[in-house]
Structure formats: structure tokens, C-alpha cells
């Protein structure tokens, strides 16, 4: 199940917020950073590879 851009960006914001928190441990920070970097890349991929798909609902 691929995530939507919205979900990815929401998670990325959460990662940044935790990373900004001084109470977060160093180990956790490194993991958060790695996760954040992946999220950024996934978001960029979604944006650059997105293509317009058009479909039409049938009328009644």
C-alpha cells in the first residue's frame, strides 16, 4: 500500500518536530534523521513522477 503525499508529508513534519525536541535521545535522533531523509526522497519521487490520470464517471 503506497502512502499518499499528504501522509508522507505529515509524517515528515512529525519527524522534524521530534528532531527539534531537545529531549529526544541521540540514538533516536539518528533514526529520525534516516527516516526523515527517506520521507523527503519519497515525497520528491511522488512529485516528480506524478502523471495526470483522467477518468470519467458514467452518467445515470
Amino acid at each position, binding site marked *: 500500500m503506497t502512502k499518499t503525499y499528504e501522509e508522507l508529508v505529515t509524517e515528515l513534519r512529525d*519527524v522534524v518536530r521530534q528532531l527539534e525536541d531537545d529531549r529526544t535521545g541521540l540514538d533516536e535522533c539518528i533514526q529520525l534523521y534516516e527516516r526523515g531523509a527517506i520521507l523527503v526522497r519519497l*515525497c520528491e519521487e511522488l512529485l516528480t513522477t506524478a502523471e*495526470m490520470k*483522467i*477518468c470519467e*464517471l458514467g*452518467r445515470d
Partner: protein
Amino acid sequence: MDRAQRSLFSEEWGSDPEPDEPGPAAPRRHVLEVGELAAIIDDLLLDERLIECFVRGEVTNFRRHASGHCYFSLSEERDGENAVIPCVIWRRDAQRLRHGLEDGQTVIAFGSVAHYAAGGRYQFYVREAEQAGIGEKFIQVERWRCDLGAEGCFQEFRKKDLPRYPARIGVVTSPTGAVLHDIVNVLTRRFPVELVLSPTAVQGDGAELEIAAAIRRIDGRVDVIIVARGGGAFEDLYAFNHPEVVRAVVACTTPIVSAVGHEVDVTLCDLAADLRAPTPSAAAELVAPDRAVLLEELRQARRHLADLLHDRWERADDEVRELRDRLRPGRLAFRIDRRREELAELDGRLARGRDRALERRRSELSGLAAVVRARSPFAPLARGYALVERNGSLVRAAGVLEQGALVTARFGRGRARLRVEEVCDDEDV
């Protein structure tokens, strides 16, 4: 002379009115200034029936002044009776008219009646005017606006926020025509997503039913809906004012952006939608974020992440360095030395305390000894006196002795055995 025919300005004028003839037509004695009279007329015309009302009539005597203001009359002939009202339409309102006015047209005009004191006439000040057939539709739309407004269809508080990153965008519009094309173009450029078209006729008989059905059909299947139609005359956009469409928009659970006609056209569908866009292209821009902006934001996010991690690492490094400093052996030795010093100092204080206590007792003792010495029965002996004893008893008077008696004398230091040579009993010391 009949009183009614008498000139008001005959000599009776100004004299006391006859008390038995006060009738309603009796002239008042107060003379109004023209301005006062005009003010009364102004006041009388402040009647809500004359303010912001619609009037149907035939345009006559239309003339456009060089200033841009237009003057004409609206007239009606019925049963051989002619009624005319002079009209003014100011330049700004005249410019906004969708159709130019000309003599012979039957129009419906919207405006207010007011008194033009400087010209001594009342006029109908027209703000809007439409040809009668279209005018009826305008009035119908106004009625719908009131009714639907009363139903709460245009209330801001029930308007929904648009999703920030829609993955599926629904479009309710004509499957042919430039509108869909424009929307696809904008979305392709900004943020390509899945677009779902819910096709419908956008004008003509029954279009309102089709539009409403198209909205209901797509509701819930997409993240956001654009209801759009290109520019057109008021009659062309009419279906988007219809309560069928407005109620479908209000009932829709998916956020709706409405873009009907050009920016100057505001339909009831626009008012009911969660957001109004001036054009279909603008609606597409409002709905989809710009991918270039998002990519830049992602680049910034990546930099921010790296900065945050680096800062955190530096803080950890500082912490370790500080702890290492605090653990240095030198620091420990220093602490031991300090303890030692403390100990030595305490030791010194202990010794000093002990010495002081001894000294105090010593001086106390020598004081006591001096007192004891001063009180000693032998003390005077040191000053040269002597005690005389005989058989262990003190001799206090010479009379108890006889010549040749043996006595002992005690001196300040030592004693001696003495033999009495002579006794003189009669002398006091």
C-alpha cells in the same frame, strides 16, 4: 363673498381664524421656506416601498450625457392612462449595464425614488436595469438568494476547508469545451493527480437537475470537487443560481470550489460553495499546490533535518567533553588535598581549644592559691613575725612563761628551740 374663492392674501390673511370655521383646508399661518418644504418632501419619500424596488416600464427619452450619466423616463400606458417617472442612472452604474438601454425597450429597473431638491422633482435613481424577460430572471435569482440565505445555504461557518494535497480531484463541468482543458492544463503543470470528471450540461432546460445530479454522483469519490463553467451571459449561467444546484452544493460532503463564469459574475452556486474561484483555471490553482514550491520545501526540509542532527550531535559531544573533564584524576587529588587541609585546620582548632582550656584553669588555680596563701596563719611569719609554742600550744602572753621555760619559735622559714631568760609581763606591744 364665498370664503373659498377669496384670495388667501386678502386682508383676512394673518388675522385670527374664525373659530367656527377651522376646516382641514384652513391655511396655516406659518410660512415655510422652500428648503423646509423640500426637506418635508425628502422625508415623505423615505418610504421603504420606494427604496430599492423593481419597476417595469418602457424606456422613453433616453439620452446619455457627456458626463456618462444617463437620463430617461419609464412609462406605462394602461387603459388610456399614461404614467411616467423620470429616471437617472449614474455613469458607474450605466457602465455596468449588460445591455445598453434604448427607447422602446421594456425593462425592469432596480433602484430608489428620491427627491432632487435642486431641480424640484422626484426621480427614480436606477442602479441596475435589464430587459424585461431577463429582468424577471434577475428578480427570480434575488428571490432565491433571499430564500436560500434564510435556509442558511450561504453561511460561512459551515464551509469546509480544502485538503492541502488532494490525490483525486473531481470536476463537474461539460465534457466538451475549454473549461476542462484549462483545468487539466493547470493541474498537469502544478500537481498532477487523478482527475475524475462528472460530466453534465451546464446550460439549457433542466441543466440545474443535471448539475445537481453530477455533484451528488461524484460526492465522496474524490478529495475535492471543482464545479466550473466558462464565461457567458447571465441567462447562460442561470442554472447555477437554481436552488437544485445550490442545495446539492450545500449537501455535498466533499469540499467544493465553484468557478462559474467570469470574475464579475457571482452565482448562488459560488456563494454556497466552500470556496469561490474567479475562473476555472484559478479554481485548479486553488485546489492543487504548486509542485515546484513543494520541491523547494522538501529541499529545505532535508537541509533542516541535517542541521538538526548535526546540532544534536554537537550537543552530545559537548556533554561527553564536560563529563570527561569532571572525571579527571587531578580533580580528584585536588578534592583530597582540600579534605586534608580541612582536617589540619580542624586539628589546629582542637589543639588551640585544649590549650586555652588548660590555661584558663591554671590561672584560676593560681588565683585561688594566692587567696589561700593570704589567708594562711603563717603568712605574717614571712613578714618577720614569729609564733611561739609551748608543748604544741600557742603562747599568747608572756605571763604564762617563767624563766628557764623551753619554747619553740616558728619563723617564716624554719623553727628554733628557745630558753626564756626573762619574763616581763606588764608591757603591751
